[in-house]
């Protein structure tokens, strides 16, 4: 069956030790569609495409049962801090 939000989170945590991670199940509960925000030092010096590949790779097993994975943010801690400062109105997780 579907993948849980917790499975996605734990896979990402173990691979990236993220300083910020937010996984939202956008499938309405069936676990087929997720939105991910992730901040990790491991993305330092990597292009956006490479970062997405890293995330996709970390979720390779889960991807078999996920129809849609939207990676809205994949940032380094520096980039994340800058975004937080410039968008103070944005809710902080």
């Amino acid at each position: 069956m579907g993948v849980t939000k917790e499975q996605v989170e734990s896979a990402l945590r173990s691979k990236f030790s993220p300083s910020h991670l937010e996984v939202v199940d956008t499938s309405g509960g069936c676990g087929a569609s997720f939105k991910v925000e992730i901040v990790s030092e491991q993305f330092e010096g990597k292009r956006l495409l490479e970062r997405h590949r890293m995330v996709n790779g970390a979720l390779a097993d889960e991807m078999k049962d996920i129809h849609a994975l939207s990676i809205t943010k994949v940032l380094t801690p520096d980039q994340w801090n800058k975004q937080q400062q410039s968008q103070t109105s944005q809710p902080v997780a």
Partner: protein
Amino acid sequence: MARALSSMLLKGFRSMEYSRTTASASGSFLQQRMRFSSSVPNDSDTHDDFKPTNKLENSEITLKDIVEQDIKDNHVMLYMKGDPEQPRCGFSSLAVRVLSEYRVPIHSRNILEDPELKNAVKAFSMWPTFPQVFINGEFIGGSDIILNMHQNGELKEKLKTSSSE
């Protein structure tokens, strides 16, 4: 029958530059796809008439070659679910909307109509999902990346560099 096969290739391909003529470069390309199609065993639709007659006969033409040709020939190549006029998925729709902002010709193939092509594109880009955007032969990414690059100005720069040399 030939028309049926060539429409198989053109099925899902949206472009102003491609035509059904068999004399052009895209014509030989059609035959490559036809060879691939006719190699399917036990296909009741196959007929001797459709055996390849050109020198490509013994070459290993694969769907990968078709993808390579697509991205070589087209400044912006989009593999998507549905077509730009009628996307069949929110993410494909998003990619079309973003790319349309730049008023550049968008060439696309509907991967829902061809599971083999779908797998070939995935293997080629090593990317698991659709849509997939290629600009100047380079794999750019899916809808998240396109949206991100649209927002930070990188997409504009990418599209500026013309493929014409």
